[in-house]
């Protein structure tokens, strides 16, 4: 806890420094202040061969209240910085939605009233800006999101002072992965490997089948796009606890994209890849070729949309999907224009996915 307090104090100090700089520029130099912030997005994301992950490039944006469009943005960043400072001073924690409400206000006079935030997206962006300005991830200043990642299996967590055993025995439920990851500590891991699936529905099915007990595995899901806590948990299990990580997602470009979040990172969080990405994770399925190898009946296949095809074409050009195996898979998809969800295996019976498909895939890759 003492270490945490010190880190909080450092963050407060950093925020105060930013404020001070602005005052100096305005009061002494009499110039327009400007916040230099690393640019976020596809055009400032770089693939690092050495790290095997997406990293942030060198571009920065300058947010200065000098144009009509940037006056609100600049104000939002400053107001959010102050709100974070207050949160830390009061030793409280908040979700990103909480921060949105805490800073909610209107600007303008009676005639011309506007909302300070057009939506929560704007306040989320401002929180990101504070992360970038201070170089401190938001978990460290106690701003979290609503938990949605889930975990099941022989792993013992300590959250704050409470011990949480994720091996609940009853097969009936999973544990939510806490988002205040700074308060979470992994106490013990008895599993042999970690299996991450795209959706919670699939995780529930596998858990119910007794997979965890039979193969001594940890099951995890990010319920779609994984949040930071889930990604960090996966990384820790792989790199600190040396457990192999395998990822299963739907056989469509969207699913593949989610699987790659764990393995290489994402454009919107490329500045934080070092904390979030697990380069050694193995994306095992569901492959496009599995649709045909496992005889998914035509009725359970879906027709690819134009958006899917465009995405696949884009992916084909990416450096991290350049090896023959992935090129072959993507070409197969582009040729047949068919996609498939993991749930489609239920067509072969409710236990088929957990008792036939997954073990076979795991054996092929040498995990089992």
């Amino acid at each position, binding site marked *: 806890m003492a270490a945490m307090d010190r880190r909080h104090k450092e963050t407060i100090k950093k925020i105060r420094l930013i404020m001070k700089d602005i005052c100096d520029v305005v009061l002494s130099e009499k110039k*327009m202040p400007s916040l230099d912030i690393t640019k976020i997005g596809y055009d400032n994301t770089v693939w690092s061969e050495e790290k095997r992950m997406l990293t942030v490039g060198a571009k920065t944006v300058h947010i200065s209240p000098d144009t009509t469009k940037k*006056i609100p943005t*600049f104000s939002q960043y400053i107001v959010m910085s102050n709100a974070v400072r*207050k949160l830390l001073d009061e030793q409280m924690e908040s979700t990103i939605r909480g921060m949105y409400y805490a800073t909610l206000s209107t600007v303008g006079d009676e005639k011309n009233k*506007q909302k300070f935030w057009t939506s929560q997206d704007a306040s989320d962006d401002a929180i990101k800006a504070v992360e970038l300005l201070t170089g401190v991830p938001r978990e460290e200043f106690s701003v979290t999101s609503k938990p949605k990642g889930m975990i099941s299996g022989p792993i013992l967590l300590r959250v704050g002072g409470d011990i949480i055993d994720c091996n609940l025995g009853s097969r009936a439920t999973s544990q939510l992965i806490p988002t205040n990851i700074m308060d979470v500590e992994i106490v013990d891991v008895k599993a042999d490997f970690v299996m991450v699936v795209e959706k919670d529905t699939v995780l529930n099915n596998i858990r119910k089948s007794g997979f965890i007990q039979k193969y001594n595995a940890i099951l995890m899901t990010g319920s779609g796009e994984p949040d930071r806590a889930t990604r960090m948990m996966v990384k820790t299990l792989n790199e600190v606890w040396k457990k192999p990580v395998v990822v299963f997602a739907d056989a469509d470009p969207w699913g593949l994209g989610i699987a790659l979040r764990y393995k290489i990172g994402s454009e919107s969080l490329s500045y934080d890849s070092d904390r979030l990405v697990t380069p050694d994770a193995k994306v095992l399925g569901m492959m496009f070729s599995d649709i045909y190898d496992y005889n998914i009946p035509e009725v359970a296949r879906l027709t690819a949309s134009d958006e899917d095809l465009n995405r696949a074409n884009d992916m084909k050009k990416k450096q991290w999907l350049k090896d023959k195996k992935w090129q072959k898979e993507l070409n197969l998809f582009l040729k047949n224009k068919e996609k498939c969800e993991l749930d489609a295996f239920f067509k072969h019976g409710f236990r088929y996915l957990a008792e036939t498909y997954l073990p076979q895939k795991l054996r092929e890759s040498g995990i089992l």
Partner: protein
Amino acid sequence: MDSSRTVQLGTSSVVQTKSKAKINFSRKAESEFFVDNSALAGFTGERILYMAIRELIENSLDSCEAERILPKIAVSLKLVDPLNDLWSISCEDNGIGIRSDKVSIAVCSFLTSGKYVELQQRGLFGVGLKMIAAFSTKDTDHPLKVWSKSVEETSEYYFELRTDIGTNKPIVLTRRDTKPKESIIKGKSGFRIEAVLRGRLSPVTKNKIYDYISQTSIVNPYAVISFSTDDGKITFDRRTNIMPEPAKEVLPHPADMDLKTLKKAIGNHALQKTTIQGILCNSFQKLSFDKAKEIIRNAGIEAKQADKYSEHELIKIVNICRQTKFQSPNVDHLSPIGERIFTVGMNTERAIFTRKENAISHDNLQPKISTREMKPTLTGYSSRACIINNRPTIVECGLAYGGNLSYFKLYRFANKIPLLYDEGSDVAREVISEVELNKMGVSKKQVKEQFSGLDSRSDRAIDLLPIHIFFHICSTKIPYKTAGKESIASEGELKKYMKACLSDLYRKVSKQIRHEMHLKDAENRLKLYKYYIPLIVDAISESIDVSAEDLTSSFLTLVDRHVKKEVSHPRSLKANAENHAVPEQHHNVRGQHKSSRSKKAYLVTKSSKSLKMKRVDSTQEKIENFMTSSEELG
């Protein structure tokens, strides 16, 4: 039909028989036809009073313009009998008047007009005034009172008239010279009419009358028009003494010839026993004697006295003429408003406002209506001449922007008459939606960003701009969409020419509008600073120890200077937009940035000073060059 009705019809004879299946053929007098089909002339229910005002004002303007008299028109509309919806309507002008022997038929007999000639006028059919007379006769027992002092006569005459609807003939109740003491018309000539009409005036129609008068004043800024109502009196003063060139009567163009016009031409020369060639070149424009001979030759008909040709032979001439190429028709018979007058009109536009009921309750002396002058910051004018429907047509387009204009408005005029109804189906509306705004050098997005706060009922960008667009079409045959003559159809290439005019204007005003928008942007930005600086200052002063007052005042001076600099050295809006995408280097390379900016400002500022300096430079260069070369020579 009862017998008294039969008697009333006069010229027509309706024989009533008992047998059922017999059709009676009868003839109707023009007056009766128009009264029964009053919609043809626009006199329907609600619109009677509006149409009456319109017809009277248009007649007065035509009458003045015929002799280039600067018009002075006084119109009044007053409720005399609320129980029976009776209104007294009057109109007085200083036009050429009507000769005393023609007054009664000119006022009462339908289809009698001095305007059946090929030249642009407001009224054409000789129906409007008669309609007022007929309706007055039909609905009331009041006679029409007319005072006329014609330019051709010396004294003023007074008439009391009614129309015999059954025969289309006037009934003259009184006709007398007015004694000089009693005379009403003060000038050299003029005309005054007073009538009582039955009608209802809804608030909508009332506003249409106001619109009609204020818009008429836009295109006739050389006229004094006053309008008295029960709500008060408003006067549109004369803002210029320039009048448009009056339209001249012209001969018909041969490409537009048909059997009727040809026979009429021959009839006009019946007594002179001339040849058909002679008649052709005397009766049509752009037709020389040689050309006429060529046409007769091509028609393959023998030479004889003009009135001896059969219709079969004449139609050959018509057909040849329609195939032959002639010079384009002349446009002397058109009277466009012209740039000078149009510009005066646009700059002195006045809208009529009606004060709310509750506002007057405690002060009855105050008139209920008043006018407000529109002062745009800039105006533009453009015109094109073209041929539509074989008739020469002139398109004039005007544009007013900014100032105290606060909304978008389209004004449509045909032969100087405002068109007030059916705007949605008018070709002008199509033209406006089809000409891209970016011809003005601004994008829809910019417009929406800057003006969406004003009145955003519409999502069309143009509707957000404080801009008034004026279209005036003049032609002897306006392609109206409907018989009501309230909207113009997209006939032939009319739309193309209108679009060309509007595009011209957009380009013409683009620089100024961008500057205007820049000022507007600066204004918006100052407002934004006013809103946001307290937020910034609060956030900072909560976090660190700094005087909020000092910070606020420093910030305010800073932004004030910043905005002023922007306004005096406007980066073009386009460059501004690029700046959003690729933000300039601000903080890091402050020194560099500063120098590059000042350079930019220098390049953009086209102040006369810098231009002059340049010129001096080049002269100096020349002198130097000259000196060096002469030195070499020496």
